[in-house]
Every structure is written in C-alpha cells, then in structure tokens.
C-alpha cells in the first residue's frame, strides 16, 4: 500500500479520534488484517475504503467487542457492505485538517516539522531522524510528545475560520518551506543538497496547492519550491561542491517542474493578492527559465526584490536586492546598495554579505579586496560547514580567475536568498 494512501486513511482516523497515535495504531491493525484477509478473499474493489472501515472498528471497539468486529467472518462481509453504499464525499479533505493540526502554533516548530513529515507525508520515524540527524529515540519522543499535546489540549482537526486563515496558513506553508530549505541547502550533514527532503517538500506543497486552490500563497509556495527544485540535478557537481548558477548545465534543469511552477504562479497571480511566496516564485522562475545567467532579466529581478522588501523588510532580502542591483545596474551600484545595508550594521556577521561584496569587487577587477572579503566570509563559518568548502574552493580559484558560487537559499522561511553573479 502506497504511503500516501496510508497517510490519507490515518488522516481520516485522526479526525475521527482526534488522537494521532490512536489513528496510527488503528491503521496498522487494519493493514495486518488486510494481510490475513486479502490473500484469501482477493483485494477488495476499494482497498482504501475497506481499510478505513476496519481501522474505524479497531479505533473505537473496546476490548470486548473487538473480537466480533474484527474476526474473519466480520471482515469477509465488509466488501458487501461497501458495495451497497456510495463512496463517501470527503469535504474538507481530512489530510488538510490533519495538516492544520500538525502545524498548530501550540506546538514547537521542530515538532510541527517532524509531525508533518511523519503523519501527513507518511515518512517512517527512522527516515525523519536520519533527515534531521537526530537519534531515532529523540525523534520518537518528540513525535509522541506532540501527539499527546494535540490529544490532551484539544488541538482541533479543522480548517481554520476565514479570519484566522491567513495566519494559520502562513504557519503551514512555513513548515513546508523549512523542509524544503533544509533539503535545498542543507545545514546539517555532509550533503549540500538532500533530494529526499526536497522531494517531500514538493509533494507537500503540491498537496496543499491542490487542497486550497484559491489561496494564492499556497499556489505561490508550490511554484517557488518547484522552480528552485527544477535546478537540483545541476546544482552539485561530482565532488559534492555547489555549482555556481552561471556554470550550471541548464540542459539538466527539470523543464517539467519549471512548467508546472510557471502554471501555478500564473494561477496565483490571477487571484490578484500578491504575497512573499509568489514574489519569490516569480524570481525563481526568472532564474530557472533564463537560457543563461547572462541572459537573465536582472532588471526585473531587482524590481521584484524591491516588491519583496516592502512585504518582508528583512536584511537578507536587502542583501539579495543589492546582489540583483549589481547584476542589473553594474557592480558599483551593487556595492553602493551593500554599503547602505552595512551602514545600518545589518548582516555584518553573516558570511553571505561578505561573499556578495567579494563577488562585486572581483567583477570590478579589485582582486585584493575581493580576496579579503572572501577570507572574512570564511572566518564567519565553522570550518566543517559545507559552504566553507565551497568558499575555499572559490578563494583558490580567484587567482586562476575562477568564478565564485552563486546559489544560496536563506534559512528564513520567507526569504529565499540568492546570491547571484555575472559570468566571467
């Protein structure tokens, strides 16, 4: 049974019992009964419906009635009962309700992430533990605690009321974006890109966009992660180093994902309520869709960062805007924007500010100042950080006029930070 289908049944049971652990146990029991019954009776016409009925019995029956409700005879008659009744209409979708429960603000963010991956995406606990480099027992405890909190404090399995929707949806989208950024530019472990996490984030973002087709930011997030992820195969070389944007083999970009992203973005923009994910998706689509780094519409990208900074006044967005200005209007204009940012004493402790400065200086032919800025950026990173490896590679390459990297995604859920450069 595909884990997505299993997750859908868990969602139905979670809504009914308001207890995720109990829902999981009931579905597990139903799957065991299926293993006994199906080889004997054949796979039912509607396996999902069959499992749901059995899981419902397992969840609700007390110990005394369990025997009669779940014995072979009772299970054999389920198919007849199902054939007699029409497929139930499920609105709103239980998975959507489960998602809002898993991403409830009463839970800590790391618990929201773990619970969403476990319950909505249907990953197994060891898989999530591996993805976030925590021990299985730590993760199991985190999950159990979150499930208890949901049950005991009465976190509802419901789509929020319209007046709460923007805030609650932002929380849900933030969790999915966090999963994506951890995959796209991993902060932990030896791998720069974690395809498994990217893939989960894409699937979740698609699911949300399907379930909430009239929420522009839900469509925007799906467009954003798809447009970024379309470049995945070209972003890391055989040595595990990040390939700069302008050196990426664009024939390896996933055109299907980019087309899907553009379609989602068009639908989002047609709803005429812009938001940060939509603006970032527009930027990502421009990057991924351009035939080369040089033939990228930098003027429009700089203008989009202007729009984004009005929505999300973060220093990281200002840094990206400075980099885009540097591409659109020349390195001197970019340095001026960077100086304004630095004058406010923002991001001076962040390596990306110095990487951006180094790149602009290098393009002006000021190699010595550029080397200094790279060294400064390196000082700000732990030696074993994968980004530090990229930087050392670039610093060495500066003398041989090699090109610096240009592809970073920020940690903040709302600011995709892309440090970009002009090809040499």
């Amino acid at each position, binding site marked *: 049974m595909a884990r997505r289908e299993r997750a859908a049944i868990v969602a139905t049971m979670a809504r009914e019992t308001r207890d995720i652990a109990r829902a999981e146990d009931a579905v597990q029991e139903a799957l065991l009964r299926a293993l006994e019954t199906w080889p004997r009776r054949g796979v039912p016409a509607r396996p999902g419906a069959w499992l749901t009925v059995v899981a419902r019995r397992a969840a609700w029956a007390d110990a005394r009635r369990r025997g009669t409700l779940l014995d072979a005879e009772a299970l054999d008659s389920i198919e007849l009962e199902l054939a007699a009744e029409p497929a139930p209409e499920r609105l709103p979708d239980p998975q959507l309700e489960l998602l809002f429960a898993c991403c*409830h603000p*009463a839970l800590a963010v790391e618990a929201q992430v773990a619970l969403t991956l476990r319950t909505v995406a249907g990953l197994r606990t060891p898989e999530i533990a591996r993805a976030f480099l925590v021990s299985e027992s730590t993760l199991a405890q985190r999950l159990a605690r979150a499930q208890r909190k949901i049950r*005991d*404090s*009465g*976190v*509802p399995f*419901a789509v*929020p009321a319209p007046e*709460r929707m923007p805030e609650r949806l932002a929380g849900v989208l933030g969790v999915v974006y966090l999963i994506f950024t951890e995959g796209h530019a991993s902060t932990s472990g030896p791998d720069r890109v974690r395809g498994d996490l990217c893939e989960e984030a894409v699937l979740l973002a698609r699911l949300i966009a399907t379930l909430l087709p009239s929420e522009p930011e839900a469509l925007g997030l799906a467009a954003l992660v798809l447009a970024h992820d379309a470049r995945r195969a070209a972003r890391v070389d055989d040595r595990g180093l990040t390939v700069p944007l302008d050196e990426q083999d664009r024939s390896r970009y996933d055109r299907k994902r980019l087309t899907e992203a553009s379609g989602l973005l068009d639908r989002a923009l047609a709803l005429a309520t812009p938001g940060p994910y939509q603006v970032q998706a527009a930027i990502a689509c421009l990057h991924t869709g351009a035939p080369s780094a040089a033939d990228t519409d930098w003027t429009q990208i700089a203008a989009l960062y202007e729009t984004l900074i009005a929505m999300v006044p973060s220093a990281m967005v200002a840094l990206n805007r400075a980099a885009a200005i540097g591409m659109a209007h020349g390195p001197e204009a970019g340095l001026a924007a960077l100086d304004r940012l630095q004058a406010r004493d923002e991001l001076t402790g962040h390596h990306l500010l110095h990487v951006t400065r180094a790149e602009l200086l290098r393009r002006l032919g000021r190699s010595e100042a550029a080397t200094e800025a790279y060294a400064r950026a390196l000082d700000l990173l732990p030696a074993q950080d994968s980004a530090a490896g990229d930087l050392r590679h670039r610093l060495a390459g500066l003398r041989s006029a090699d090109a610096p990297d240009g592809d970073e995604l920020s940690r903040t859920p709302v600011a995709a930070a892309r440090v970009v450069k002009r090809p040499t």
Partner: protein
Amino acid sequence: MRYAVLLYADADLDAGPGAKEWDQSLPQHQALGAALAEKGVEFSGGALHAIGSATSLRRRDEQLVHTDGPFAETKEQLWGYYNVEAPDVDTVIELVGGLWEVDHGTVEIRPLLPGPEEMAA
C-alpha cells in the same frame, strides 16, 4: 473539554479594585463574561488578591509549615483564572485572545483532566 485559563501579570503590579490595571482590564473581562453567558458556555472564574496576600502551606517532617507569600518567587504573578468548557483549544484562544493580560502579561491555557465523576461515567 474543560480548560483552565490562567492569567499572569507583572508581580509588582497591584491587583484589585482601585488599581489602574484593574480598571484597564475590567471591560474585556466583562465582555468575555457576557459573550460566554450569551453562548450558554459553562464557565467560572475569579480574580485573585495581590500576591502578598498568599499563604503557602507545606508539610515537612510532619510539621505544617506556613509561608507568608507565594510558593515561588516569580517575575509574574497569577492574578486570575477562568474555568471554561470548550470544544477545542482554538475556541479558547479565540475567546480569551482579546484580554488585557494577553497584551500586558501572559495567558496560559491548560486542559483540565476529567474529574472523578467524569472518570466514572
């Protein structure tokens, strides 16, 4: 489900009628009380005297020890509570979100365990 809503504010504030904070917080509490009564929601609640009025009891070595003051020194004091019936935690958040204490102190929402009668039922 039944929820305890615990209202915390700065320990230095003087609770009780006559205090500025009392006057500021009163309208929202009255509005909440009226809203709960109108919806037929079962609830109770109360305001506490200032923290200095507390007497803490503990028995140690079979001796009953009285302490003049709260059981622990904290920066925030419990100064009122509600006990309210609600279908889920979002309903409670919606109900109490407008209270003065949310802006100026902290409001803690805690589900109550079922009482002995409910356990037996």
